[in-house]
């Protein structure tokens, strides 16, 4: 199953508001993390940065299913993406663009120098839905 990201989601992916990602280990323990940004790759693919070894990184390599929530506070809604981890890239244009953005976010939040990109983890989008504020 695959889905296309609508054009209107792109500004939300670039709004600087942290993103939520949920994963699950193969022994069935769910995990939920806050990450700085999800990157638009193409209409069916997003990327997340791998900076530190984490439960999220470990989980998706064992069980590729993940759920991402993008926060659109200004628009009064949240976007829910069901995704599957596909592969990682350690060089190339996607990696370079993410590396530059990570340093920009880190600098803006007073955490410059703490983050180093190890890989760009690419996920295929399975479904997209929105939840609006009441």
């Amino acid at each position, binding site marked *: 199953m695959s889905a296309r990201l609508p054009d209107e989601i792109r500004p939300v992916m670039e709004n600087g508001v942290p993103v939520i990602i949920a994963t699950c280990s193969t022994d069935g323990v*769910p995990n939920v993390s806050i990450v700085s940004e999800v990157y638009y790759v193409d209409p069916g693919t997003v990327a997340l940065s791998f900076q530190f070894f984490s439960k999220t990184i470990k989980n998706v390599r064992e069980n590729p299913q993940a759920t991402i929530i993008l926060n659109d*506070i200004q628009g009064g809604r949240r976007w829910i993406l069901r995704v599957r981890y596909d592969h990682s890239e350690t060089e190339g244009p996607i990696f370079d663009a993410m590396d530059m953005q990570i340093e920009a976010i880190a600098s803006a939040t007073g955490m410059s120098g703490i983050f180093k990109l190890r890989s760009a983890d690419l996920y295929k989008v399975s479904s997209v839905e929105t939840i609006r504020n009441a």
Partner: protein
Amino acid sequence: MSESRTLPRVLVQFLDRASVAIGCTRDASLAPSIHYSSGWLLDADQRSIWCFIPEPFTAGLRASLEENGHFALTVEHIGPHECYQFKGTYLSMRPATEADREITARCRERFVAAVATLNPHVSPNRDLLRKYILDPAVAVRFAVREVYLQTPGPGAGRLLAQLEDRP
């Protein structure tokens, strides 16, 4: 099973100043789901947490909890980026009460204050921020088994407290 312990005082204090919380379950196929928690409260037993979840984030919640009992809650103090993940076992669920909504209102104001302070020039106005934290529909209580550090940095993922052995 080891003797049950209570949450360390530093984490109890953290829960009182935190500004956002996100719950997570998984279904029988190990697909994870996110359940925003509009409010939260440490139970009087000092080792279980109540999460107040709005209706749009209840899809699959009860079914997953009754099927496998796993629940995770990540809680952050926006601003200093202080963040912990509480993992544990489902205990109970009930409709949200007026008292839950009052607790949620206090959590909502902490969220609004934190985000507005973070960058007052680019943050949405306070009314928009308030509307973003929806009123709860249900209250979920889970027993905390483990607490992990999630503050960004190389120490993220470190086990900070273990209240029970894994089943």
